[in-house]
C-alpha cells in the first residue's frame, strides 16, 4: 500500500497501482491515471466503460470481468481492447478507482 498524488490530492493505491478507497476518486483522478497508462484522452466510449465498471463494483462489491463487461456494458470485447489496450477490465478498473478484477475461481 502506498500513496500517490492525483489531481492535487493524496490517493491510496495497492502495489499494482489500483486505488484502495473508491471514495478518493473523481473524474480528474481518472483522467490522470489514464494519462499515466498511455490513454491521452478519455472519450465518451471510455467513460461509458469506466462508469459501468465503477457502478458495478459499488453495487456488487466485485469488479466485473472482461466477459461481463462485453456482455453488459454494450461495448463489444474487440472494441474494449482498442479502448483499453492489453487488459480492458484491469485498466478500466484502475481508471475507475476500484480494486483489480479477479477471475473468480
Amino acid at each position, binding site marked *: 500500500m502506498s500513496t500517490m498524488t492525483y489531481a492535487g490530492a493524496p490517493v491510496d493505491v495497492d502495489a499494482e497501482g489500483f486505488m484502495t478507497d473508491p471514495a478518493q476518486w473523481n473524474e480528474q483522478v481518472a483522467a490522470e491515471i489514464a494519462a499515466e497508462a498511455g490513454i491521452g484522452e478519455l472519450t465518451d466510449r471510455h467513460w461509458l466503460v469506466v462508469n459501468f465498471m465503477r457502478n458495478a463494483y459499488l453495487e456488487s462489491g466485485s469488479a466485473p*470481468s472482461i466477459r461481463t463487461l462485453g456482455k453488459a456494458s454494450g461495448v463489444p470485447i474487440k472494441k474494449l481492447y482498442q479502448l483499453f489496450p492489453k487488459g480492458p477490465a484491469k485498466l478500466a478498473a484502475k481508471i475507475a478507482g476500484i480494486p483489480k478484477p479477479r477471475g473468480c475461481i
Partner: protein
Amino acid sequence: MNRIVIIGGGTGGTLVANRLRRQHRPEELEIVVVDRDDRHVYQPGLLFVPFGIDRPEGIVRSRSAQLHDGIGFRTADVDRVDVEANAVRLADGDSLEYDALVVASGASLLYEETEGLRGPGWGESVFSFYSVQDAAALRAALAEFDRGHLVVNLVDMPIKCPVAPLEFCFLADWFFRERGVRDQIEITYATPLDAAFTKPVAAEHLGGMLAEREIRLEAEFATGRVDGGERRLISWDEREIPFDLAVVVPLHGGSPFIARSAGLGDELGFVAVDIHTLQSRAAPNVFAIGDAASLPTSKAGSATHFEAETLCSNLARFLAQEELRGSYDGHVNCFIESGFHRALLIDFNYEVEPLPGRYPGAHVGPLSLLRESRLNHLGKLAFEPLYWHVLLPGRGIPGVGSEMSTAGKQAALNQGGNR
C-alpha cells in the same frame, strides 16, 4: 406436506436430495429431482480419460440409481422457472409446483461463444476435455501425437475445476515422457490470467511447477478466436499462438433455462445468491448450489459438498419459517494431479488463499497442502469410490469439515482477503 423440486441430478442435486430424504420423513416432505437425462458423470474422471487412465463409459452411472428411495426422478428439459407462480415449467408442457426450489443445474459449455472453436479443425487439431465425448475424442488424438506443439488454453474464467487445465499440462508432460516423445513436443499453457492461477501463493508454486517441466506459460492471453485451419489461436489484442494440437476449455455459462427465467440469473446465466446462505436474490424460496450458483469460489465438487450442509439446513429453516444461517465460507479443496503418480492438495475459502500445511488434521495430515506427494495422488484416486458411495448418499467424509480451518497452515494470515 411441503414439496421440494431440485433441478439437476448431478453432484449438488443428488447430495441435497439424499441428505434431505435422510433428514425429513416422506410424509412431511416430497422431493422431486428433474434432469434432462439419466447420465451422471463423475467429472473429475474427465481429466484422466484423455490419457487412457479412465475409460469414457467408466465414469458414467445412472442418476436415478444414486437417489435414495422416496425421491422422485423426472427426465425432462426445463423451459423456465416461474418464480412468481412457484413452478418449474417443463419443455414438454408440464409444470412442477414447489414450496422450495433448489437449482443444481451445473454449468454449460458455451463453445459457440468463441469464434472458430468448433469450426475447421475441430476434432482434428482442436479438442477439449470437459465432456465425455470431447475427452474420448482427445484420447484418440493424444495416443497418436508424438511431435509438435501442444497448446492448452482456457478461454476465460469462470470454469469448472479451475486447476484442471494446469493438471492437464502436468499429465501431458508425464504422458509424453513415459512414451519417450517429450523432447519432440513443446507444451504451452495459455491463460487469460496474469499468472498460472488466481491465488498468489498457489500461482507462484504452480508457475514453478510449469517451469520445472519446461511448460511455457503464456499469461494474459485472452482468446478471441480459434483458427483451426491455419492452426493458431488469436487473442483479442491480436497475439497469435501457432499449434499442432490445441486443447481448449470453452467459456462456461449457466444452464439456458436460467436466462429464460426472469430475475433468476446474472449476466452469465448463473443463479445470483447470497454467498453465505445460498438463498436466491430472486425469491426467498429459491436456493442454488454448486456450479449453477454465482459464488466467488471455485466451481468444484468439493465446494458443492461443503455448500450442501448450509443449503440443507437453510431449506429446513426456511420451511419452518426460521431465520437462515450464513454459514458457507467459500471453502473448497482440490487435489491437483502433477503426473508421475504424485499430486498436490489445496484448501481455501473466500478470505484465505491456498497455503502450505497439512490436511485434514492440523500438523498431522496425513495429506500435505501445496506440496507434491504420492499420498495426495492416492487420495485423488481413492476419491472416486468415496464419491459414489459416501459423498452422493449424503454421508459426511470423516475428518473433513465444511468450514475451512486455518490450523496447521504456514500462514501469513494477516495478509487479508484475496478476493
